């Protein structure tokens, strides 16, 4: 029963909340979608927290994504022990980097009065779930080694089964690693609270900056097509008052 709750109900509730909540927030609470940077109030120690934290998460995120999307490629790649070793060590290092960064960020908030002025309740929740998530991830990596191999063979099917609305939880509910269970549950909790926290900031990662032109000029008249009068100029419709 508990397994059904944690590995079937929770994922669906989390995903639904995430989808509905994020879209709602983006559309109707647009002003509040922000990374809420506090660098302006404190810049130096932020560097030692934010950089290792984000870069660690950045690579881990793509690691998980690859294992989820291309499991067989990953298993094939891991065929050589050396490669497997490299992947395992690198992932562990990124995990440590993220943990170090998180601890630095928390310390910064606790010790800097200015940053405390811009800390809200949800920030505490965010730190808490991230801490659980990263620590449980590191424990899985340490106690249930070679995850990059068994993730693809074992977790990917479970995750896929969620997405095709045919949840298969036998494997995950019988696994004898508490850390792994915590890791999965806390991952879905994070997904669930995305719309209610500063997590929204990574949903608006500005990839389109890469292909947009540097300068942006916007004509309000034209865009809204409000104006029909031709009284003020000959030629075409007035773009400028």
């Amino acid at each position, binding site marked *: 029963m508990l397994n059904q709750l944690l590995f079937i109900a929770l994922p669906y509730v989390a995903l639904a909340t995430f989808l509905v909540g994020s879209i709602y927030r983006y559309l109707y*609470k*647009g*002003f*509040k*979608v*922000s*990374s*809420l*940077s*506090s*660098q*302006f*109030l*404190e*810049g130096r120690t*932020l*560097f030692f927290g*934010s*950089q290792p*934290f*984000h*870069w660690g998460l950045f690579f881990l995120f793509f690691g998980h994504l690859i294992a989820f999307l291309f499991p067989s490629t990953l298993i094939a790649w891991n065929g050589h022990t050396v490669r497997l070793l490299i992947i395992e060590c690198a992932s562990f290092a990124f995990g440590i980097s993220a943990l170090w960064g998180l601890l630095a960020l928390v310390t910064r908030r606790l010790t800097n*009065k*200015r940053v*405390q*002025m*811009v800390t809200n309740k*949800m*920030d505490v929740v965010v730190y808490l779930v991230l801490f659980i998530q990263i620590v449980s991830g590191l424990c899985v990596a340490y106690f249930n080694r070679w995850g990059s191999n068994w993730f693809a063979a074992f977790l990917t099917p479970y995750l896929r089964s969620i997405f095709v609305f045919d949840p298969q939880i036998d494997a995950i509910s019988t696994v004898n690693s508490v850390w792994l269970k915590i890791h999965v549950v806390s991952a879905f909790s994070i997904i669930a609270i995305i719309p*209610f*926290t500063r997590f929204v*900031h990574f949903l*608006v990662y*500005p990839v*389109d*900056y*890469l292909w*947009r032109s*540097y*300068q*942006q*000029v*916007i*004509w*309000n*008249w*034209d865009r*809204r097509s*409000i*104006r029909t009068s031709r009284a*003020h*100029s*000959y*030629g*075409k*419709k*007035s*773009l*400028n*008052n």
Partner: protein
Amino acid sequence: MNVRSQIAMVFHLDKCIGCHTCSIACKNIWTDRKGAEYMWWNNVETKPGTGYPTKWENQEIYKGGWEKNGDTVSLKGTGKFKGLKNIFHNPYMPVLDDYYEPWTYKYQDLFTAPEGDDQPTARPVSLVTGETIEVKSGPNWDDDMGGSPDFARQDVNLEKLSPAEREAMFQLERMTFHYLPRICNHCLNPACVASCPSGALYKRGEDGVVLINQERCRAWRMCVTACPYKKSYYNWHTGKSEKCVLCYPRLESGQAPACFHSCVGRIRYLGVLLYDADKIERIASATDENLVEAQLEIYLDPFDPEVIKQAALNGIAMSTIEAAQKSPVYKFLKVWKLALPLHPEFRTLPNLFYVPALLPGMANVQNGIYNTTSKSLWHGIDATRLPIKYLASLFSAGNTDKIVEVLKRLMAVRMHRRGETVGDLSKEEISAAMHEINLNGKTADEIFRLTSLATFDERFVIPPAHREESIEMLENTADVKGNTGFGFKERPARGL
């Protein structure tokens, strides 16, 4: 030719008395809010000095603006690659202490203090943390400190001078300063717009005002770094950047921006310039010596029939073209060639131009003897109090010829008027000065008039935005019928 219209500005530094009325007018309207207390969209600096934020001109520290890169320009500290790489922590971003910690006073203590032998005091408290602080700096902390070691001698522009020239500048008898009021330049090639990963910043097509869309700003804070003038500010409370909006709601209703309107010295002029948008890239990448001349070239003659035709084809209203023809900025900049951009070497093509202060030489010390004699009533401009090289570092990317030219014109106008009103200068001296720069009496009188006597309507020639429709530039009025006109649509709280 791709003609666009731009609201441009001229500040006449000889007339600035450094009273900060402009700054206060702006603060009262726009930045008297939590998170914005430290912002001065309009500020007045003393030059030589370090300015606000401290040493903002030093792009070795702040990496603002553009760099020449062959035939084009690239952003110095931000951009697609550098910006996204530094998004988690922006290494060149100024922090609160580079500006100052805003404060108020515990006025209540004056009333509630228990009776005692001492006068009660109102201690300063930080507007960020609410704790009592010792005030160490403020937005105009270097006010009038023209010779001070902490401020004047730290001025970045002094790097262009030799040590001897620098020492001469700080001789007691020569010591001087002038004021430098600054607002956003609403540049033609805005670095802030180019640096914004979210595309929240944009230039308004109608009048060239550069704005930040508050709903799209995600606090990646690249604009703060990119603006070499440090005129984009991060609101620490709302988690959004903000900047000077050139009082566009006032402009749309035909009023001058608050800082212009309130200016006591009447140093400010505002009007339309037409420019050719196709030339922006080429002109932004001119060589340093040519930058000022090249920028003048981008602004078009509003009387030229071809320009008028192309402008109309681009949808520029006849009323705007007429405003461009009456523009005081066009006169100062293109016709009389008296106004120069601030730090053109940042290559953003700023639209705020300065008539440099004349600062005539007064005295010097030779062999310990204080020497005030001069051949004429005024010293020649070669003996100005501030070295020409210093002014060139501010206003012409190091091109001293440009500065000399402008100062000679200003001096000739002054001599001409002295001839008209007092008549104690010899005719030959005046006509020599006028002749040297091809100035006739009529033009000199016009310059004098616009400089000294101009009325509101001559100083601010604002094209009609057709008030009855101006709000429609921003929103579809039917959608917001019944809503309040001011304030936030959403409360600006952090997080949820």
